[in-house]
């Protein structure tokens, strides 16, 4: 298993950098992963997405789709792409400490 060190905290990740143990996630780790993904600061808008992803993942056991983020989470698709440019769902899931998205839509 691979590990990664963020500010002295060691966490388990897979080859692509997704956390393998969700319980190791903290807001500090989220900020550090975001920086690696080119997002220098996590704003309220980012946290809204992260919070919904985590809440929905815990409730349903699977990542929501971009459509669900919009219709249920109330996050407009345009905004999602603006917040996490270059692969919104993948980046947001990684920052939220969740697995890589597996659905096609």
């Amino acid at each position, binding site marked *: 298993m691979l590990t990664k060190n963020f500010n002295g905290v060691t966490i388990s990740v897979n080859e692509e950098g997704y956390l393998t143990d969700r319980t190791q996630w903290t807001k500090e780790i989220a900020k550090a992963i975001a920086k690696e993904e080119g997002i220098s600061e996590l704003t309220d808008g980012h946290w809204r997405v992260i919070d919904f992803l985590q809440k929905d993942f815990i409730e349903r056991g699977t990542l929501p*789709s971009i*459509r669900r983020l919009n219709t249920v989470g109330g996050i407009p*698709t345009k905004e999602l792409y603006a917040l996490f440019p270059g*692969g919104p*769902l993948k980046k947001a899931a990684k920052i939220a400490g969740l697995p890589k*998205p597996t*659905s*096609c*839509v």
Partner: protein
Amino acid sequence: MTESNAKLEKVSIIISRGTLDGVYPGLIMANGARMEGIEANLFFTFFGLYAILKKFNNKLRIATVGNPALRVPGAKGVPLPTLFGMLPGMSAFATWMMKREMNKLDIPSVPEMLQMIDDAGGNIYACKATVDMFHLSNDDFIPQVKKVLTVGEFYELSHGAQIIFT
């Protein structure tokens, strides 16, 4: 997986067919490209143009005639004989079945998916030759259509892209 960091950066997807099953693959590929951070241009031509006509794009159907892969009642059932495929309501029924399955997977309807692609920063274009042939004007299109393009303009904007014909 290759070791290189090379990544596909741009795709141009042509949608040329007007059946539900002819339109969806291109839409899913375009949306999927945007989800990966890949630039996506969608070009609708011939009967594919019906996917961006506001009066018709919610009424696309599955072809039950001339589609030997179509099985009933489900994908692993028995082949639907072409003769039955001609019966009134067959196409509507097959379409209803497929839409129901897609809804379970959270796949949006065609109009909603086009809106999603537009929101995601994908570009939607119509083919000029077909627009002229079908006597269409801008009023006929959904608002997400960016422009009517000639084939030459399509190639210009596809510079550096992989072109995918569906």
